[in-house]
């Protein structure tokens, strides 16, 4: 949301100290391609192991970096089952529907660096889905409020590109519809 504030002018003042980096897992050899832990440490980050969930996080002043990965088991995997990505010498938290954020991304940045962020339509659609999967009500409210703030910036053409590329089951469709009703966003615009 912070990035959309910069790129689109989305009004969203609240942000936490979490930076989630989505990782695309590509099968390869045994040798680490990039030792991300070392790269981040050289950049001034401190790695630490969270005993509560088994995730290795990186701390920089005021921010915490953690890695997330697409959950190919469709969310059936328990949250505690952390995925080790030996190619990058990190581990990551598997979460459902992350692939759509990786597939529909755009590059933003300055002359010095760039980052890839999901296009707002993908982020919006992802939040519509996961909001209804949240166990905690306040998390769901936050997700839907983010959707509401983003909804004014959604382009139908791009949104359809995102939604048409997903395989969505009946139950998930029902959940999306429910999210749309809460934020008063026309479900028909999703084209699913």
């Amino acid at each position, binding site marked *: 949301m912070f990035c959309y504030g910069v790129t689109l002018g989305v009004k969203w003042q609240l942000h936490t*100290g979490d930076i989630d980096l989505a990782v695309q897992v590509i099968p390869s050899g045994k040798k680490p391609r990039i030792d991300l832990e070392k790269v981040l440490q050289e950049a001034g980050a401190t790695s630490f192991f*969270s005993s509560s969930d088994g995730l290795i996080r990186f701390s*920089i002043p005021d921010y915490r970096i953690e890695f997330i990965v697409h959950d190919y088991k469709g969310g059936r995997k328990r949250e505690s089952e952390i995925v080790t990505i030996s190619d990058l010498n990190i581990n990551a938290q598997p979460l459902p529907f992350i692939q759509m954020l990786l597939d529909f991304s755009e590059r933003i940045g300055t002359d010095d660096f760039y980052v890839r962020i999901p296009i707002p339509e993908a982020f919006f659609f992802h939040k519509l889905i996961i909001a209804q999967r949240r166990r905690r009500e*306040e*998390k769901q409210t936050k997700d839907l409020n983010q959707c509401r703030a983003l909804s004014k910036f959604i382009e139908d053409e791009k949104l359809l590109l995102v939604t048409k590329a997903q395989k969505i089951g009946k139950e998930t469709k029902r959940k999306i519809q429910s999210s749309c009703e809460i934020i008063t966003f026309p479900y028909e615009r999703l084209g699913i």
Partner: protein
Amino acid sequence: MKKVKSNWIEEMLFDEYRQSKDVLASLEKKIEEYPKGKLGFRKKINKKYGRVYEYPCLSYSENSKVVNQHIPWSKFSEIKERIRLRDEIINQIASYRERIQYLAKILKKSRNKEDLS
């Protein structure tokens, strides 16, 4: 006394508070792996040969006494780097403490004392 049920913004702040406390605990544990004290140099005069020998040392206090631990030159760069990393962690600890204090101040109005302990 039980306080009023909070809203999602307050929950988000409380989440941030809890996570910051977790990070702080992890960083405080992590810093124990690093050397303590300051890296400096000491000179020793060899009276017999009239030569001055300079060597690096790690100065820290232990049981109210100052300890000057000799560091071999072969380990000097490694220890210097570890002290640099330790100082970065110290800065981060300070930053998290400040954040926790700030969040606790906001949350004090709506949360019980036990939640913020």
